[in-house]
């Protein structure tokens, strides 16, 4: 009941392996290298988040992958092929690039923006427009309504969605994201993160995502790369391992206090049991739906559209006035993806009047409703488990703090 569809093991992977080998970037006139000998392998189909304080070289490292910045030395390989074997522009057309705020071209419509790369690759216009519609649908924008709009007619979150669609347009195996959700409000950011996870679950791209927000890194990343000054790797591991056993003081500091609570950021909603209250379709007769709901003891009904997407969540007393069940514009209903963390779920519940939240799966399909009690039960359980886990890790690794580097007061948490 909690999981629908495929599991991670059998999903399609369309990404490519990315390898950085002793990559150095030294700017003329600067003593310290911006990136000093970075070596890293990003497995195909995984999201790796680069996180670190400002000026640690994470963005420089990212831009070297699509040659917006040329490395001073070292090699970068995509699918075992040196990125310098082709021209920079044709390389970039094969790598998705998503930037903060979307960076859409304001004088082009949404469709033109998304279709820029396919057009440069010489696709014919029918194929481009089909692809544009497919992508807009994927990022949760109705193509008929948004295709011909200009960026200024969209909200920040919608622009960012179009930005993601543009990055995915030519179906690149590798996608680079530079602070993709830095410019939107927290609730929208959380929603966009959920959607990215959901899209990634569907497509299996290799994604490198730069962020300064450790919570975002934990949430999005299959692995997290924590960088220090000069793009020195402080730790490169899964979020679980980084939280349970930070490699040194810098990491512990960066990850921040309350890492037990942060474990909540690791638990996805899909791991919990969802309730299945009464549902109805838009256009159903109200009477039988209400009767069914009253029998089941539900005070609310989840209204779905013809694609199983939740569109409204009225109380029974609100439904009484209409002979048929009515939907609302989908954007007005706050839902979370099954990949959302418990933190997000709690956040969303607090802003909702239901103290519950609707959980959706791929392409916003309805999965069920998560209530507050389920989360608190899980929290208590998780806290106990985390404590045991850390104890065990300490027993295995000896005394914590051994071999840690000197901490400087300037180390920022960002």
């Amino acid at each position: 009941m909690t999981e629908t569809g495929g599991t991670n093991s059998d999903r399609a992977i369309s990404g490519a392996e990315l390898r950085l080998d002793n990559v150095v970037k030294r700017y003329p006139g600067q003593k310290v290298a911006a990136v000093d000998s970075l070596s890293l392998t990003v497995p195909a189909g995984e999201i790796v988040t680069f996180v670190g304080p400002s000026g640690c070289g994470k963005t420089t490292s990212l831009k070297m992958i699509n040659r917006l910045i040329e490395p001073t030395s070292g090699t970068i390989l995509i699918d075992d092929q040196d990125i310098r074997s082709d021209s920079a522009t044709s390389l970039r057309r094969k790598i998705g690039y998503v930037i903060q705020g979307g960076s859409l071209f304001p004088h082009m419509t949404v469709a033109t923006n998304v279709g820029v790369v396919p057009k440069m690759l010489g696709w014919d216009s029918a194929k481009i427009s089909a692809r544009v519609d497919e992508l807009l649908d994927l990022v949760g924008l109705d193509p008929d309504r948004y295709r011909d709009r200009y960026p200024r007619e969209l909200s920040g979150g919608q622009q960012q969605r179009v930005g993601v669609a543009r990055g995915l347009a030519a179906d690149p195996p590798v996608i680079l994201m530079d602070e993709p959700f830095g410019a939107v409000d927290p609730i929208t950011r959380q929603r966009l993160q959920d959607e990215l996870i959901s899209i990634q679950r569907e497509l299996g791209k290799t994604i490198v995502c730069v962020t300064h927000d450790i919570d975002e890194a934990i949430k999005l990343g299959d692995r997290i790369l924590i960088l220090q000054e000069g793009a020195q790797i402080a730790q490169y591991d899964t979020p679980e391992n980084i939280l349970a056993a930070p490699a040194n003081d810098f990491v512990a500091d960066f990850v921040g206090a309350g890492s037990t609570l942060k474990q909540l950021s690791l638990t996805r909603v899909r791991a919990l049991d969802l309730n299945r209250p009464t549902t109805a379709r838009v256009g159903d007769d109200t009477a039988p739906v209400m009767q069914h709901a009253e029998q089941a003891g539900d005070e609310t009904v989840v209204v779905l559209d013809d694609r199983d997407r939740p569109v409204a969540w009225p109380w029974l007393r609100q439904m009484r006035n209409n002979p048929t069940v009515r939907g609302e514009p989908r954007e007005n209903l706050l839902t979370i993806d099954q990949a959302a963390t418990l933190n997000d779920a709690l956040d969303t519940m607090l802003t909702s009047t239901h103290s519950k939240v609707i959980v959706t799966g791929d392409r916003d399909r309805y999965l069920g409703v998560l209530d507050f009690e389920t989360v608190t039960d899980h929290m208590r359980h998780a806290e106990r488990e985390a404590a045991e886990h850390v104890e065990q890790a300490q027993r295995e690794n000896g005394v914590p703090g051994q071999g840690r580097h000197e901490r400087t007061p300037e180390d920022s948490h960002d």
Partner: protein
Amino acid sequence: MTEPTPAVLDEPIPEGHEPSGKRGARVITREMVTMLTVPPILVAAVFGGFVWWRQTAELDVVEANQLRWSLLINSRFHEVFPSWNPMDWHAPFPSWNPATWYDGPLLQGLIWEHVLLTVVSAVIVVAIAVPLGVMLTRGGLKVLAPIVVGIANAGQAAPSVGLIVLLFLWLDGGFWTAIIALSLYGILPVLRNTIVGIQGVDPTLVEAGRGIGMTGWMTLFKVELPLSVPVIMAGVRTSLVLIAGTASLACFIDAGGLGEILQTGISLFKFSLMVTGAVLIALLALLIEWLGRVLELLTRPKGI
């Protein structure tokens, strides 16, 4: 009735107040409507007043000759442009030969001449200043930008009469000498606005263009130039008005234009001619300014 989940997502989604017209149509503000309707009405009204005065006032021989009308009613376009001979430095349009003017200083001829001086100079200005401005924002040439803008600045700061006379001493008089002087004079606003406009394009958009695989040329033509068109066109409009005003001085070097009436009025101390010349020049400048605005609006890319 309140929604069960009133949590607000995003900023307000612009759907409630969809513009009634076509999606993405240019935004027309009240101010723009005023700017676009008032000048032509004003010009028409003043010109109407002038026509009324011209028809009712008692004119002496000089005035009547100077303000001959027939052409305005009976277009002599084919006489004004009988054969184009650009190799004739003094008068590419034979019937415009200044030597013939005194026989019939033709009002319409002068207006046309003034317009032609302005438009030809403006076209040359755009053809030179825009590519030059673009070049000065590229790679290594960037360092030259202040120097070139400085030279253009000096060109404009120099008194226009001085510039015209200097060129006259060097190249002798005539239509093309006037065009060179006017082009030099009008180049600065377009050049400066091209540079400023391109430099003003959000660098993250340029990087986004490069990052998704546009070549340098594509970034220029698909991103930088379209986005700087409004700024460049504002420069073109300024330039047009400058040239239209300065073209009144072209008559000093036998290049004609409405300055002719003004000059005749001054030398013969005919008050009516002076006022006529001044009013017609002002009206033409206003009209050209208005056309510049219309052009600005039409060339502005949708969406910005």
